[in-house]
């Protein structure tokens, strides 16, 4: 079965996804009978389109063009097209939304996703904002049209947390909490291991490509809060991003870290919600060094899911372009049913 995929957003994740599809496309086809054909990739200035689907070599090539310039890549580049014209020319079955997350307006992701659904495309997201702000609208629109929306890449993008939560169908989830932001966890790990201040740790994280030039979405807890909303909505809880108590990591000093270490503890930026009380939070917490979360370091994330039956802990990659790209590909295969 051929699946025509349009990739909207062609930065770290979009490119990793294109390269992954080039290299693992045959494997996926052999195992699941699904041939993933990328028919277009889009960045903020334009697109490269090939209605019959790019070859592997072409995908590897377009993944190497400089940022914001896919539209100049010969011979498939087109500059400044509207999403409507893109859809008219490539008619995708699946829309992959990997534009930046904007938690104020949800744009451009929100409009893109709604448009994709209106044109009969299933949607796979790594961009969290549309779901964090308009979960019900998106799902309602998809349901009304018999379409699927998958978003495993949005929370612990490199690990199957969403699938795990969805699979707990007969459990009553009491509480979910954990470390859901890789950037802040990396920064905190550096602060504890190298005994440096937040500014220096942040600069290192930026240098290593772990933190954005503007890290406020991570440091101030927006990113983790958006993930909580998505998790809560999965469980049918009406949590809004504005209703989450957020405490920024920026107030954590080296002195706090040293004090915590003296008490055989560590500081982590923990996010969670209590399904019974409806309370939700993102805040720096001092954890005893024998707790599970205290041992989750660097770019790893962790989720603790407490249910009426038992508790589950998932530790794994929080994101990373390659890992997130795998989640996108897995979602596409699961939308199309696959052989297994």
């Amino acid at each position, binding site marked *: 079965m051929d699946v025509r995929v349009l990739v909207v957003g062609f930065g770290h994740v979009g490119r990793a996804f294109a390269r992954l599809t080039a290299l693992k496309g045959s494997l996926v086809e052999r195992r699941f009978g699904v041939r993933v054909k990328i028919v277009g990739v889009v960045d903020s200035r334009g697109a490269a389109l090939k209605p019959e689907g790019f070859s592997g070599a072409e995908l590897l090539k377009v993944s190497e063009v400089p940022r914001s310039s896919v539209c100049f890549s010969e011979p498939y580049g087109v500059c400044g097209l509207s999403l409507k014209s893109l859809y008219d020319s490539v008619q995708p079955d699946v829309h992959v939304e990997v534009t930046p997350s904007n938690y104020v307006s949800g744009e451009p992701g929100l409009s893109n996703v709604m448009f994709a659904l209106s044109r009969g495309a299933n949607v796979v997201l790594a961009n969290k904002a549309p779901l964090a702000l308009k979960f019900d609208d998106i799902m309602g629109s998809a349901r009304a049209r018999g379409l699927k929306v998958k978003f495993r890449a949005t929370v612990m993008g490199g690990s199957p947390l969403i699938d795990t939560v969805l699979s707990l169908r007969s459990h009553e989830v009491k509480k979910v909490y954990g470390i859901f932001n890789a950037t802040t966890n990396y920064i905190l790990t550096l602060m504890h291991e190298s005994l440096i201040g937040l500014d220096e740790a942040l600069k*290192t994280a930026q240098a290593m490509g772990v933190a954005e030039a503007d890290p406020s979405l991570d440091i101030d807890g927006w990113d983790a809060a958006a993930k909580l909303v998505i998790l809560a909505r999965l469980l049918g809880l009406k949590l809004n991003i504005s209703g989450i108590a957020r405490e920024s990591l920026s107030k954590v000093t080296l002195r706090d870290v040293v004090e915590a270490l003296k008490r055989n503890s560590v500081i982590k930026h923990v996010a969670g919600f209590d399904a019974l009380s409806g309370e939700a939070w993102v805040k720096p917490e001092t954890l005893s060094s024998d707790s599970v979360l205290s041992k989750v370091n660097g770019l790893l994330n962790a989720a603790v899911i407490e249910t009426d039956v038992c508790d589950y802990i998932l530790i794994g990659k929080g994101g990373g372009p390659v890992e997130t790209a795998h989640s996108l590909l897995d979602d596409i295969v699961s939308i199309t049913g696959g052989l297994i």
Partner: protein
Amino acid sequence: MSSWIVVKIGGSTLSSAGSYFSHAVKIRALIESGVRTFIVLSAMRGVTDSLLKLAWGRLGELEFLRELHYSVALELGGANLASVVDGILGGLGKLASTAPRGPALVDYIVSHGERLSRIFMVKALEAEGVKVLNVNALDIIAVRGDYGDAYIDYRVTFMNLAKVRELAELEKASPVIEGFIGRMSDGSIATLGRGGSDYTATAVASLSSIDRVFMVTDVPGVFSCDPRIVSGVRLVEELSLREAREASLYNVKGLNPKAFTPELLKEDMEIRIGTWSSKGTLVRAGASNGAKLVGYKGPTIALIGEGVQSVKVAVRLLEALDAGGVPVYSLEFTVEKPSISFKVPENLAFKALNIAHKVVVDG
């Protein structure tokens, strides 16, 4: 024998747009002769050292790096590529001047030599009409261990390379990949240490079941001793895999220890080291016996060649050293290694090298 060959382009041969073009012409000719190529790239000459200095805060290096890369980019890809390269180097300069230093950051900066070189080689090959698979080493070469001296995770890399081979076969394209760098499990970039591109090349070959490797350098092959110390050195025509491995442990130029680790060297492998036009040195199983070269590492000198590990050769060597007035502190050989190693006073090491080399030349 498979029709594939891994061609590793050494940094000493890369210094201008013309050098990329001339490699591209040779590679095209190889492909036209029915051989499939998997190309491994080093950074341009002098670039790795310069990037290292930049990473340690010597911002003056930017000028050399800019001058070199900008002109090559301009010629290979016009103003667009030149401005991309300029942007990349500008970014590295900013990082080097503002970010706290550490081994991971150093490797990140240093890795750009190979990354830029791949961009250039792809351009040159495309201009020659070669269909290229532009492979990012960070997607394929999984590494572990320390920054600056990482080693390849063979299991993961094997699985990744299988996909590259499959795609290359399917699309009849030549993979081009950076040597020297790989991706740690946390997503960061690590380098493989000195001679890391050779290591990538033999690993790519071994893990992709490719039995031929051509390491293209600017010298005609491996010499029988260091020509800066010993006169009358000659080109070694053939080495066994064991001899190459042994020689790599004694700083013999052109042979890198990691590239010749036993687990990578399959019996049917042939590794040629040399220029495009020279016959080069052929490393292969079944090479003839006899003393072939002399290497040294610190105070230890080694006479290397299958069969030299015998009392007869040891006595000859000791007699020659004695006749030359060089006392020997210790000498050892075992049946397992194709070498005799010995220690002499430091001030007589060069003399000892010359004497041992004469044993090689006299056969």
